[in-house]
């Protein structure tokens, strides 16, 4: 009985470690992705460019979603995000 409990504890501890490592690895991947995309700390003169990149990513996804009639919620939220980015782009252009 004692052995079974302790084996369970060992297994749970191992699972926690694996989950922790998976979490760390995922965090590292996110960090790398954002760093490579120049989005961790956007330089002052690159905001307009990053807004354009984001718009393009949304438009690409919207293109995919147009073939679907069931992803209405995602399509609507993507369209709303696109409108926000357009507004921000115009505001940035006014200051250039």
């Amino acid at each position, binding site marked *: 009985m004692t052995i079974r409990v302790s084996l369970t504890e060992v297994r749970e501890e191992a699972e926690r470690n694996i989950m922790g490592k998976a979490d760390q690895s995922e*965090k590292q991947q996110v960090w790398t992705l954002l760093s490579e995309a120049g*989005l961790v*700390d956007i330089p002052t003169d690159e905001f307009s460019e990053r807004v354009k990149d984001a718009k393009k990513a949304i438009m*690409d*996804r919207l293109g995919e979603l147009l*073939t*679907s009639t069931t*992803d209405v919620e995602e399509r609507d939220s993507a369209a709303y995000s696109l409108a*926000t980015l357009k507004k921000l782009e115009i505001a940035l252009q006014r*200051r250039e």
Partner: protein
Amino acid sequence: MRLTEKRPDVRPKWPSEEVQIVTFTSRGGTATGVVKEVRWGLVWRDFILDDGRVIPEHKILGEHESPVWRKPQDISQDERAAWERRLASMADAGLDPRDEEQPFRAELNQYLAYTYLRFKEARHKPPAKQT
């Protein structure tokens, strides 16, 4: 110092409630400030200083745990919409994201990072088939 929007799935041990002054990397090197609040953003946490500057957690120096992150799928539709409304209203008010360590810059940076992660992930997901 106040910690806002605590989430049950993430229990950061840092910053402790006693920490008042932080050192962080700034364009000119390093700087210090008094922390008023730590606030969750769309991707990472921001430290709001008492003079209004906003410093992302990954720029804070010192011994602490690695920054905690949120996944795009953890952001609700309401939270995203509220964030977008706030950005639009800051743009309307004439704020400039090129102003260092200011709320508009901090919020726009997080929004662009979040948007990138959100749609990068979605790109690998085929749209649902028509019925």
